[in-house]
């Protein structure tokens, strides 16, 4: 294809040609093009179909404010829908497709919607699909979703990688147009750390689009020189292709850098985009302004564009939408577009200016006091109809119409912390108000300073003010300084199907309808018509909508008010927010010291918080997890088993007040615990509920090691620091986590002592007398390695926990297995651990569920009344100590094979099954290979007094009713003889 609408000049590299595809057809382009400019150069004006009415649409703008020109970019899993053609940087081999059309862009079956437009006006959904309710989900919504809408998803996982990053600076400059560049030069030369971010791939902003000079240079040469100087400054970081998406509290800005979007394929390991969090005390918004349209009948045909966009395409990209262009304007800037296009050899059919006193031009016709009243052209503009000042009409033949209704400062970011813009009469536009995010100031056109000279000056001054620079400001190049000359003009009288918001298909008529139906406040208008609620947040439409509402209500625009913007400035892919935190890397994974050994042994792992723990260790021939778990339990209870319990939180507590500190933290007493002894500890929350449990081992008078449950390790540590710093600030106590410094293994079972005697060095006497139940102490193992030994038991067996520095954990596990061979030792996982603790009646996570008290768990006597401890006062509350409060019991089905379901509720043998008759619930359920029965633990009203009672265990969800008996929670060794053996 020849690029028939390619002009001369521009910032494209004509020495290189790219090939790209749009809707399957091949075209050529040059580096420096966007997809939009390349399509125009190739005489493609029709880009897509509109959201609701499926009207043919083309490009409206040349920037990120584009409401219409959205495509599906790339193919397969890389497909990205709703991508603005105006911001897609061209690369060789680019593929894009039009969207929201079927079967093809030129013939779209749902264009029939346009004929039924009377039925699809504002509020249509609310009115039509009210009733019957059931139809909504099944019929209306799927139908609407198919018809209305945007591009389609690939339905595949996004294969690209995204990064997150963090940068700090003294001054963040948002936008690299004349104001931003001048601000960066000012701050950069003064030595400040500057980040200059711009969404475009070429810095320069509006200066890239203009034909005028700065001093004795072209605007583009001045930009190139400024960028070269900034690049040479080590304290200035230039970030092109970076959109600052939001201004957050205390000088935190979000920015999306598109590091890979302009590449055909990403290099290995490189991210497609980076979400930067930029920390800065000062930021300067130099986001420029956006030209606004004028609404007139059929103003949405492909070829009808913003005048400034036509100028950008011509000057920067050397492309035009047509060789015959008309302009419709209410201000002098429209004339600048006409002049620039004319200079590029494009025929200007006429400039239609609503002002009677519009400037005259001798190169082409200016129709003063005229208005565009209608347009023609099915798939692209062919004619416009103009009402002249004398009342007659005239038809102009043109393939493109540039519309200029004046300029709106880009105040978006100033609203992110609920700042409201204020109306400026001279500009007939909203400008940033007083209430800006702290540290943010605004310069250039974004602040309503519309001339180039003004922008340069305001950029330099604002940067100097923000950084409190003293001294002479840099010299400014001589630049145009034209005053804003316009007559506010929003829409052509009498028009109906005149589009205000092209992305959401909102017309002038819809805005008026909203008024008629009583939705008159700006917030109601927005929600009723969906004006400004599309992905462009109404950058080209909001003000026009407000102006129309102002007129029909007889109010001024500032009286009607304005909606404010929220982050992000432009849409951001979800993957960018996720960054690397996906799949396996969604959270960090913690591995136990025996992990590599367990993995080699074929262990099955389970996630416990961030930890991966061995769940069971299948042996050859074991095909069901129960076989492995039952065996591990039997082997442990019959002889000896080893379990990695490193994941339990371990907190080193030292200081002369350490014992007293633990007295406050735990409900039971620790002051009198002897050195060399361990005690079970119950920790309450201040509201009297159980927070956690564990053990505290006293290694010295002023030194304890406290254990927590795996799940609560972090929160218990936080709680203890709270008590230490906020409640008892003068206690001499120091805390530090030692959880993973030590590989800690439970060695349990009747032969555990014998096994450990082979590991622990012989000078340490492990006999029952020398090292009784609940003893603890420092020992050495395997010929001198420092270790800690605790005689504590979770399984109910004779048991120890042995700890060595983590790096030796792998070797110790192997040694335990080797030395234990003669005892038929088995490693056991979390399942067997769970079975044994239920058999023993130990409360664990399912029982410590945040709603249970010590009394509930049968541990009421542990709460000491003789001392102050966290939670003791409120644990006495009336409702918590009533006679029929829930108590922990064992649950045994009358038929051993009957399933006990955790979460199932207990009902009396007779009577109704409902909440009013609920007697309690099952917290844990396992199969006990020792009792050859399913068993459970549960909380039952006054359960401790009801042992032996028969009850019904019901689970209405799973349609289960099982007859059970309440028994002691201590199924195994109720007298505790084994663990003291």
């Amino acid at each position: 294809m020849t690029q028939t609408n390619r002009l001369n000049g521009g910032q494209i590299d004509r020495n290189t040609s790219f090939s790209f595809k749009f809707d399957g057809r091949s075209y050529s382009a040059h580096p420096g093009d966007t997809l939009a400019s390349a399509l125009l150069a190739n005489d493609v004006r029709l880009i897509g179909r509109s959201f609701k009415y499926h009207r043919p649409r083309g490009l409206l703008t040349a920037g990120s404010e584009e409401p219409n020109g959205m495509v599906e970019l790339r193919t397969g899993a890389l497909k990205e829908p709703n991508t603005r053609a105006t911001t897609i940087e061209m690369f060789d081999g680019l593929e894009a497709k039009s969207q929201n059309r079927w079967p093809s862009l030129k013939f779209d079956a749902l264009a029939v919607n346009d004929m039924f437009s009377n039925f699809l006006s504002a509020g249509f959904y609310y009115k039509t699909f009210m009733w019957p309710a059931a139809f909504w989900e099944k019929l209306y919504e799927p139908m609407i979703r198919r018809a209305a809408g945007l591009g389609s998803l690939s339905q595949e996982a996004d294969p690209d990688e995204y990064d997150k990053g963090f940068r700090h600076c003294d001054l963040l400059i948002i936008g690299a147009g004349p104001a931003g560049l001048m601000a960066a030069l000012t701050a950069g030369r003064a030595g400040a750390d500057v980040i200059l971010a711009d969404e475009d791939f070429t810095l320069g902003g509006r200066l890239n689009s203009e034909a005028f000079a700065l001093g004795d240079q072209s605007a583009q040469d001045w930009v190139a020189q400024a960028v070269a100087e900034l690049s040479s400054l080590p304290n200035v970081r230039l970030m092109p292709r970076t959109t600052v998406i939001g201004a957050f509290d205390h000088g935190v800005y979000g920015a999306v850098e598109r590091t890979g979007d302009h590449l055909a394929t990403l290099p290995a390991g490189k991210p497609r985009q980076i979400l930067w969090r930029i920390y800065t005390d000062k930021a300067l918004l130099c986001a420029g302004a956006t030209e606004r349209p004028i609404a007139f009948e059929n103003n949405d045909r492909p070829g009808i564009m913003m005048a400034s966009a036509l100028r950008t395409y011509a000057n920067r990209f050397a492309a035009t939408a047509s060789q015959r262009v008309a302009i419709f304007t209410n201000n002098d800037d429209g004339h600048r577009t006409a002049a620039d296009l004319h200079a590029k050899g494009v025929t200007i059919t006429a400039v239609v200016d609503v002002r009677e006193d519009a400037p005259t031009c001798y190169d082409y016709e200016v129709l003063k006091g005229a208005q565009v009243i209608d347009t023609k052209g099915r798939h692209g503009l062919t004619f416009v109809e103009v009402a002249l000042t004398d009342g007659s009409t005239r038809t102009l033949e043109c393939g493109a119409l540039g519309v200029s209704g004046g300029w709106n400062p880009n105040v978006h970011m100033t609203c992110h912390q609920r700042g409201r813009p204020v109306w400026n009469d001279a500009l007939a536009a909203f400008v940033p108000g007083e209430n800006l995010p702290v540290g943010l100031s605004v310069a250039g056109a974004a602040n309503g300073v519309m001339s180039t000279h003004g922008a340069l000056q305001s950029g330099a001054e604002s940067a100097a003010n923000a950084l409190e620079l003293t001294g002479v400001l840099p010299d400014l190049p001589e630049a145009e300084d034209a005053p804003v000359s316009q007559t506010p003009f929003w829409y052509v009288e009498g028009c109906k199907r005149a589009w205000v918001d092209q992305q959401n298909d909102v017309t002038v008529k819809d805005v008026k309808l909203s008024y008629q139906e009583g939705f008159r406040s700006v917030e109601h208008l927005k929600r009723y018509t969906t004006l400004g609620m599309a992905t462009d947040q109404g950058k080209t439409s909001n003000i026009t909508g407000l102006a129309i509402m102002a007129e029909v209500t007889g109010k001024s625009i500032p009286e009607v008010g304005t909606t404010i913007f929220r982050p992000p400035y432009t849409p951001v892919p979800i993957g960018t927010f996720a960054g690397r935190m996906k799949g396996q890397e969604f959270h960090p994974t913690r591995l136990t010291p025996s992990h590599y050994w367990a993995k080699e042994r074929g262990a099955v792992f389970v996630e416990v918080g961030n930890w991966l723990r061995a769940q069971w260790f299948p042996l050859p021939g074991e095909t069901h997890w129960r076989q492995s778990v039952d065996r591990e339990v039997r082997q442990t209870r019959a002889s000896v088993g080893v379990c990695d319990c490193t994941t339990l939180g371990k907190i080193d507590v030292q200081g002369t007040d350490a014992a007293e500190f633990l007295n406050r933290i735990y409900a039971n007493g620790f002051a009198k615990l002897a050195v060399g002894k361990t005690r079970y500890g119950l920790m309450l929350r201040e509201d009297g509920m159980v927070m956690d449990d564990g053990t505290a081992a006293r290694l010295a008078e002023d030194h304890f090691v406290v254990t927590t449950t795996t799940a609560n390790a972090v929160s218990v540590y936080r709680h203890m620091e709270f008590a230490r710093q906020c409640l008892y600030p003068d206690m001499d106590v120091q805390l530090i986590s030692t959880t993973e410094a030590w590989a800690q293994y439970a060695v349990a079972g009747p032969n555990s002592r014998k096994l450990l005697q082979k590991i622990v060095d012989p000078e340490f006497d492990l006999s029952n007398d020398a090292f009784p139940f609940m003893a603890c102490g420092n020992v050495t193992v395997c010929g001198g390695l420092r270790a800690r030994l605790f005689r504590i038991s979770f399984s109910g067996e004779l048991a120890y926990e042995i700890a060595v520095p983590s790096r030796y954990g792998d070797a110790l596990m192997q040694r335990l297995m080797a030395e234990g061979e003669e005892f038929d030792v088995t490693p056991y996982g979390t399942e067997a651990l769970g079975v044994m603790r239920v058999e023993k009646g130990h409360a664990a996570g399912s029982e410590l569920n945040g709603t249970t008290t010590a009394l509930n768990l049968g541990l009421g006597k542990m709460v000491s009344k003789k001392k102050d401890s966290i939670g003791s006062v409120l644990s006495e509350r009336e409702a918590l100590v009533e006679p029929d409060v829930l108590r922990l019991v064992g649950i045994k089905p009358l038929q051993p094979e009957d399933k006990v379901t955790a979460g199932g509720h207990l009902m009396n043998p007779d009577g109704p099954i409902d909440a009013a008759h609920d007697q309690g619930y099952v917290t844990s359920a396992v199969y006990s290979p020792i009792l050859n029965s399913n068993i459970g633990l549960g909380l039952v009203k006054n359960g401790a007094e009801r042992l032996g009672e028969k009850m019904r265990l019901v689970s209405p969800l799973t349609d289960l009713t099982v007859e059970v008996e309440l028994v002691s929670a201590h199924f195994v060794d109720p007298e505790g003889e084994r663990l003291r053996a």
Partner: protein
Amino acid sequence: MIINHPLLGPRDASEFTYLGDASLIDRPDWQAENAAEAFYEYGYVRDNPAGEHQELWYHEAGDRSWLVVTRNTLTHEISKVELARDVARARGRSK
């Protein structure tokens, strides 16, 4: 948000864990006549000011200091950050 840590300077709020009202420092006397009532108020009754609020933040991904942060709930402006230990002592807490 940024919290200006008294020892470490400005740090991102994501490094901190929020607990709540700094009145949690003022734990009642367990032996007082009205201890039950006092603990009920301590545990459950909170002011919800539209404006300045003293609250407890824990520098979990940092130096493990508990801080008392004075934050305006309307504007998020943080006007003061103190070590909670100092505040606790100033409020008469000791051992």
